[in-house]
């Protein structure tokens, strides 16, 4: 059995590997809650939505394997959330709501909500990519990138702290950015 970590979850999903419940839950619960709010579900329904979506992924076991033939995972996830939201709405109206009634609800989702979903998903992907980066990248390179870019220290100081040359700091920066770009592209496919 291969174990997914927070860092390798998305790539594992993309590869079609088995992923664990807990990691999946932690990662995608905020996204599902966000989408539930956009669909005008109340708090209880949003919690139920999370449970329904998770159950649909992990219906048979504690692990989940993604079938690539279903398309991009983000679209698949989005579609799954919509379906489960519709189920919740139907249950709210005693199953009398038809598909025609649901269409205005979905059409009424504002564009800002779509943008928010995209942004949130992108942040999730970026977070995943950074975790993935930790598994691929040399710690010195990452530290150098962190101190230089995120902590905003001068290259010379970073170099003296890590015992490397100042030029290397710039090289590390470009290397990390290139790797991040590549990982994000892979995850977003």
């Amino acid at each position, binding site marked *: 059995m*291969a174990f997914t970590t927070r860092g390798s979850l998305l790539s594992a999903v993309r590869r079609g590997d088995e992923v664990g419940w807990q990691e999946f839950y932690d990662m995608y619960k905020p996204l599902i809650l966000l989408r539930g709010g956009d669909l005008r579900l109340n708090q209880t329904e949003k919690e139920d939505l999370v449970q329904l979506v998770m159950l649909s992924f992990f219906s048979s076991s504690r692990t989940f394997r993604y079938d690539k033939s279903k398309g991009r995972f983000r679209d698949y996830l989005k579609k799954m959330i919509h379906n489960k939201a519709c189920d919740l709405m139907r249950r709210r109206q005693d199953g009398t709501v038809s598909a025609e009634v649901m269409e205005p609800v979905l059409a009424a989702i504002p564009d800002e909500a779509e943008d928010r979903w995209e942004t949130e998903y992108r942040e999730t992907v970026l977070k995943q990519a950074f975790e993935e980066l930790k598994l691929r990248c040399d*710690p010195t390179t990452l530290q150098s990138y962190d101190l230089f870019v995120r902590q905003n220290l001068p290259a010379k100081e970073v170099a003296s702290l890590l015992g490397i040359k100042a030029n290397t700091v710039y090289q590390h920066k470009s290397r990390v950015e290139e790797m991040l770009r590549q990982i994000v592209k892979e995850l977003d496919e």
Partner: protein
Amino acid sequence: MNRFPSNIKAYRPIALCGSGAYGSVYLISDAAGGRYALKIVDKNVIGGSWEREFRGLKHYRTQVSEHPNLIKIFHIEDCGDFFYYTMEAADDLAEGNGYFPATLANLIRKRGHLPAENLRETFKSLLDGLEHLHNAKMIHRDIKPDNIIFVNGVPKFGDIGLLDTTTHTLSLAGTQDFVPPEYLLGQEKEPTAEIDIYALGKTLYCAFTGNDADEFPFVAPELLKNPEYRIFNRLVRAACTPERSLRLKSAAAFRKALAGEIGWGYEFGRFLHAVVVLPIYLAIRLVLFLFSRKWILFLLIFLFLVWCGMVIKTYWQLEKELYPWKNGFHAAAFKRALKEWHIQTGKYDLYDFQPKSDFSVRHYGERHLVTKEVYLRAKHPGIPQESVGLTIMIGFPEDNDSIRQTMGIKLRQPDITQSTPLKREYLHEKVFDRIDGNDLQLPYRTEWRNKVMLLPAAPDGTLKYRPELPLISEVNLTFDPRQINGKLHFVLTAAEYVPLPNRKIPDVQWKRQMRFPLKISGREIIFGDALYRDQDKTEDELQLLCKPKLKKIPVEDRFCKLSIITADTYCRVYLDGRLIWGSWLAFYGGHFEMRCKTDKVLKVSHFSVYDAGIVRPGEKRRSRLKLPKAPLPPKRETNTFSASPAVARKTPSPELPRSVSSRPAAMPRPASDKSSPAVRQKKEVKKIAKAVSSAVIAPSSRTDDAPKEKNIPKSRQKSSPARQKAVKPPFAPQKKPAKGLPRTDYKYVQTQVAECIARLDMLKEVLPEYQAIPPEEVVIDCFHEHEKGGNVYEFRIPSRKIRAKIRIQDILFINYRAFADFYVGDKKIEL
């Protein structure tokens, strides 16, 4: 299983310390009041592997439990659905409120990042324990801050529940960040000791940063300002890098890194990774990329095959052109040629013969020769670097198309052998002996040379040696540069010539020439570029032969000796043993000429020509050239000739014979002379010398001609016949003169002795009244050849009561002088 089992009656639970996937840990006390930790493991949770875990515990207890940095296990018991074991309990960090076990994780939670000094000692102790564990072929597999406890302040590895060496199951609950990535990704499944090192590195990261393990490798910048933490940071980076080959692999390496020394293995690994692993990785990526786009791959393979085909075709063509004798027809022809020249064909294979040029066609009148030049390359030991050039006359076809038909049928000797029998003999002796290895190292040896000519003085400004020089010749010329302020040209003109159809008169003007110009000022001698004029060219069509090896040398207070050596395939010019010009142009025989453009009197004190051909040691030299011996010059103007026509007119000198055939008709051989031709010739020469001396000396004996002697050196004045009766010539031997030593050599040795003595500082100490010795005072008694080369001259200086021997040897580059048996009076002086 959060409830304490009722069937454990020997212990009383005090507190639940924690519970995990495999069971719970309690703080208990026994009947005596001792505090212990008790861990209960549920067999149902572990599943079928509980027996292995149980076996591992027993092994741990018996083998390694006594180590101070490993937690001690006191009791293990199997209770059906579960088993439990008791062990040392961690110190209590709670200050009276319950039990707060002293684990590293709790310390971090309580204090944040830990001080460097404590950490270093703590991890040193932990490394001891880990090393002991690994030496017992066991691995911990679950090292993390929570599993490092302090018992009485001593750090120990706790939670040894996963100890095993065979299980393939890894604990993941809460420890993912302490497992190497290759195990997380499923690339590796067999656990090794390296995972403990990795986990310990992560533990150290948590301890010195206060961060969680999932924040690795980020460190707060202010922490890195502490040099101790920088060492920890470097260690953690080395221990927890994702690249497995670069990681620290043993507790010993970890300990070294903890002391601030990242081992050379780590550094070398990084270097290897950069140099080898990364290129291979990139190459694999490239190959995968190409395989993903197969048309690019096929295109590259196609281009590679085309390139290979072109290379093979080119090589095949070159092979065919460069080595035509690989064809059996040519090989047979060449072997036949070698046989004619008595070359042992077994010693060289045909591939040693490289063509210098392709077939060349030379037109000689109406017919033309097709020649093929080949070179013996310096491939075999013994063959000189500069190869011997051979020319094979392949045939005499009328056009190029018939070359192949006549090739190999009409083989001839090299054309150079067809000029004179003498040259053919030379070639057979010289060239082919070299090929056969008889004389490989030094084609020219001074001790084998044979003097063939001493040139007398010449009255005009040009010195021309008209008789043909020997094939391998050495021309020596000694002159006084102090007397010259102008230009000198030494010209060698080739003896051979090719009678071209358009040339009616084979004149010397149309022969090949080598010119060596030099300019003499009062202070230095400046050498110009040696020039070459090919045959049938005019004076304006000179080519550069070679540059001088020395640009200029200062004029010294003595005579200069210029040597021009044309031997084998080179021509070299030396001045006082120093190589001035060197050329690899073949120049056999010829004439020598010196042209002087100066207003003053040019003094040539010595001129000699040697036939420098091969004379084997012990073999009697047989002079090949029937050259006349030069008459002894008159005493007064013996070694002096004037470069100025004006001076020459004032001091008329008779026409000196240049050869026997050019003997003046005014001096017929007496009919009554019945002696041998040699004796007769000697007498004739003496007569000529007498006539010359009387013609020159007569005016000087007159008193009104005294001013004309002003230009004559004092030593010469002393040696004038007018004073010969009254004053003995100082250079004349007082006892037995050196027999067989020519007068010019006699004077040369005198000069050399005087110069060498002048350099003897030791002599100045012995003789306080020492003054410079004039060369004329040196008396040479006798001389003989030295066994190692050169001559040994016995000399004395009566005025200083000095007698000694001097060995003089002039080798090409070195003028060797050495004294022996040096006496001043009766006292022998060690020099």
